[in-house]
């Protein structure tokens, strides 16, 4: 069973005020059934400064082929040469199965909660 972000507690809103969280809105269906089109989330842009992504994390990353497009995916595997990112709804997802592993520098942050 995939883990989905829980509703943000007050601390998350304090962290937003302190610039430690960003507001994110999902568009599209590749993260169904847990994340719907239009869902609002909080992302920690500093999550991977001191630690590395782990399997199961939901992350925001730069699209490998389309400049300025940010995508939301789940870390499926941690590899020697990067991170295998997939959508929870593979039928509706362009991800590592098409583009290969993502380098850490392309991962922008970790989803921490539902706003």
């Amino acid at each position, binding site marked *: 069973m995939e883990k989905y972000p829980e509703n943000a507690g007050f601390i998350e809103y304090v962290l937003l005020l302190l610039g430690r969280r960003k507001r*994110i*809105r999902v568009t599209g269906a*590749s993260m169904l059934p847990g994340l719907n089109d239009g869902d609002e989330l909080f992302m920690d842009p500093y999550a991977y400064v001191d630690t590395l992504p782990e399997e199961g994390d939901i992350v925001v990353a730069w*699209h490998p082929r389309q400049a300025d497009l940010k995508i939301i995916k789940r870390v499926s595997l941690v590899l020697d040469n990067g991170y295998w990112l997939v959508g929870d709804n593979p039928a509706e997802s362009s991800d590592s199965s098409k583009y290969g592993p993502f380098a850490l520098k392309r991962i922008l942050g970790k989803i921490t909660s539902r706003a």
Partner: protein
Amino acid sequence: MKNLIKNLFAVEEVSAHCDGPCGVYDPADARIKAEAVLSMTKKILAMEAPDASDAAAVVAYNNTMSRYIAIKEEQAHGTKTDILVLWTDFFKPVHLEANPDLHNIIWNATKLCSACKTSVSLENAEALMAAVENIHNIFWAAKGRDVAFVKAS
């Protein structure tokens, strides 16, 4: 209160889309997989069967051989899928006018993918690479760009 705080900050959209709005195609996907087919074919042909009395060596040999075959099978099928996606989703009638033999080229390339699955043939694997290179050239010419066919291996 939470909404008040939240609305002080702009919301950023992140995409959870499929191929539809992406519209990004690249024959590199097929090239990487065809290279894997060629690599696995070479590895299979280079394998030496161990002495049948050495049970551990036979198990290791069978395991390695099975993995090579499985990867060749999977990557050949992936090459076929990537070529067919270019054919059905990227190429348009205008490209067919510039390349009247396009359907035949695609048909032969995808047939080669099948041949690489059913055989262990260096000739077929190299022919598949050449076919993918040809499609690469047609693809980039259609986009008006001169992109070199660079191999990873």
